[in-house]
């Protein structure tokens, strides 16, 4: 008799307890969490490491600064406001343009200065930060996503989540916003996760609400067989992120800008496990293999090569 949990083990699927006890606790030193939890700090470190990120327009740290904000933003038609310590894509406000002195939001609604100010004051008050601690708000370049995804994305910006262990990319998926997810690329909120073949950058089919899906529910576009542009560059970027973050087990989120190519958005020190469902591959065989390696190659190119080899042999 094979119990469901034995079957999951056979498939190499990792549960939350195992992720926390065997990978996050031993490989992610708590003192380095602040580097990835604070997006401002992550951005600075990434720039130093030569990883492209969306350009920072400004930082709001105290309520008083909100008044001067409209002058500061005059030069930009569109921008994104996000909390420095946010998680799960919460508290992100996307302004796509201006119309008669008001801001136009990503979902088509418009907002005035007051509404923007209130949103920023909520961020400063800690509404979206872990533990409700006071936070600061970042205002940055709005990514114009590559049209390669327009047929499989509804509003919002799709992003590519790559799981990196000891500097070796192990699994990747592209997260596609849907009408249900309200333009957010978060699987919990209803985005689609589509697995990516690490070796080729070609998509498999997707998973929506933990169920397999082959077409985008809103646009009807086919999810599988699409080739992600700049794939090798993306893999190299994720491997580099490990080097400056100082964390062994991370999820790196990358977006594709139509003008500037791949950009690193954020690093997650507690990456979710749905990526296994999107790829229909358990994480454990690859994780245990990399864990068993005595030394990991130092150069990024070698690690990307290792990742591709691993993907070929364990899929």
């Amino acid at each position, binding site marked *: 008799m094979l119990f469901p949990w034995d079957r*999951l083990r056979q498939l190499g*699927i990792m*549960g939350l307890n*195992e992720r926390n*006890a065997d990978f996050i606790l031993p490989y992610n030193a708590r003192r380095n969490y602040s580097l990835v939890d604070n997006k401002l700090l992550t951005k600075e470190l990434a720039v130093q490491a030569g990883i492209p990120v969306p350009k920072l327009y400004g930082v709001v740290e105290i309520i008083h600064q909100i008044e001067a904000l409209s002058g500061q933003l005059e030069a930009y038609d569109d921008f994104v406001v996000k909390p420095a310590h946010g998680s799960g894509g919460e508290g992100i406000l996307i302004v796509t343009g201006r119309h008669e002195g008001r801001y136009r939001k990503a979902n088509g609604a418009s907002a005035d200065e007051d509404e923007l100010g209130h949103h920023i004051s909520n961020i400063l008050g800690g509404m979206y930060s872990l533990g409700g601690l006071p936070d600061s708000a970042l205002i940055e370049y709005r990514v114009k996503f590559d049209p390669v995804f327009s047929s499989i994305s509804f509003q919002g910006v799709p992003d590519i989540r790559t799981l990196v262990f000891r500097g070796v990319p192990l699994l990747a998926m592209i997260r596609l916003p849907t009408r249900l997810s309200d333009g957010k690329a978060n699987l919990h909120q209803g985005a689609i996760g589509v697995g990516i073949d690490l070796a080729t950058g070609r998509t498999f089919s997707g998973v929506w609400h933990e169920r397999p899906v082959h077409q985008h529910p809103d646009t009807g576009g086919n999810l599988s067989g699409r080739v992600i542009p700049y794939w090798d560059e993306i893999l190299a970027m994720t491997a580099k992120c490990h080097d400056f973050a100082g964390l062994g087990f991370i999820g790196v989120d990358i977006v594709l800008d139509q003008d500037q190519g791949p950009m690193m958005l954020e690093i997650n020190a507690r990456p979710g496990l749905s990526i296994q469902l999107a790829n229909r591959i358990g994480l454990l065989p690859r994780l245990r293999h990399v864990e068993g390696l005595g030394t990991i190659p130092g150069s990024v190119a070698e690690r990307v090569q290792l990742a591709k080899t691993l993907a070929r042999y364990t899929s």
Partner: protein
Amino acid sequence: MRGAHVKLLSLLLVSVGLALCWFKVTRLGLPLVPTEKANVWTVEARIQFKAQRDSAVKVRFFIPRQPTGFTVVDENFVSGNYGLTTEDDGVHRSAEWAVRKVNGYQVLYYRIHLSRDPSIQPQPTEALVPPEIRPPGFPDALQSAAKGLMNEVLKKSADGRSFVRELLARLNAPTADPNVTLLRQGIENPEDWVRRVIDLLATANIPSRTAYVLALKDGISHGSLIPWLEVFDGKQWVTVDPHTGEPGMFEGAVLWHVGGEPVLTADGGKNVKIEYSVTERTQDRTLVAEQRARQMGSRIMEYSLFSLPVSVQNVYRVLLMVPIGAFLIVVLRNVIGLRTFGTFMPILIALAFRETELLWGMVLFCLLIAMGLLIRFYLEYLKLLLVPRLASVLIIVIILMAITSVFSHKLGFDRGLSVALFPMVIMAMTIERMSLAWEELGAGEALVQGFGSLLVAALGYLCMSSRYLEHLIFVFPELLLVVLAMTLLLGRYTGYRLTELWRFRAALKG
């Protein structure tokens, strides 16, 4: 490596916890279940006498010393302004009250609380050399009668034991022969009778002595000790019924004192009177064991929770249940995979349920949360800053609690008053988190998490209100080490959560 460390630590904790618990159960007799009751007899000896004018008074009273088949739960002396000393020479135990100058009638009390315990065996502390025999001083007429009787008994017996039986059978026979009739003369009370038997046995070189026995019977108020016979059989003292020759004592007999010395002597007192009263009551076995352990001078009980004032004890009765609730949360979250608002919020709600009772607690909880949520949605429209908004929700929760109490009191539902026992800060945070979840994850998810929390609180209440568990943890707090060990082990549990089997069902199908 770390796994082995945790396992070793857990093993250590479990063994320490269980060993302490085992010791308390087997040695101190603490019961594992709360329902057990024990019968406790309170025996009170009331000593009354008139003090002689201008003379020092010294009262010597023999008291029981580890009665066989009983455990001494507690013992106390009421001695007024007398000085009290107790003495134990290995065979007898006595209390001595002394005062230099006293006038008028005096009353002293000795009280002992006994509980039946078949495991208490007679202690062989007495020296096993045959005791000395005092040659009896019979008058001539009795001397020959005794001799005649002895010769007859000797013929019909094989050893000391059968000799005693045969002698007593003859002495107590309804149709007495002339020798026995003679020997029965001059006997005025049972004490004299026993003394006569002892004298007769002494002529046959069999050592014996008087034993004073108390009958434990509820309601005795002016009782006295019953003289009994103890015969030395060459190895030990054996009790024998002086009227039937049967060995042993009757049911409910407590050996009070042995030997020729009177139970009570009062120097400097006259009209000395002693009365025994016995009352029986049932008591929680835990209390009995606890008092007994203290009587035994056990260090463990001296530093137990029972040594605290009762009001503090009651606080700990509740507090010690929190680890059970916390362990339940660990299981529900890490093994089952339930999601709740706040890690330990359901436990605090469950503690409040202890006072309100489950059904009413759940009704009041839902009522408060629902009203709080409605007002919170209105506050959302006002676009308030975070901390002032949280404070407003807290203030509103307290106002709602007060209103609920007042209205339910007016309407005659006094249960509604207990709403005041809900932890208000926790309620405010729950409302805040639930409204955020409502906004961000949708009403469905918010309700799922809300009812999940309520379900966990109800489960927590069921665990934490269990009389059995409460008794077990309070009497054996060392079991918390076992709970801790299990929690530590779950801290290294890397298996799947039950809900993950559902989450990864797509993989299971493929």
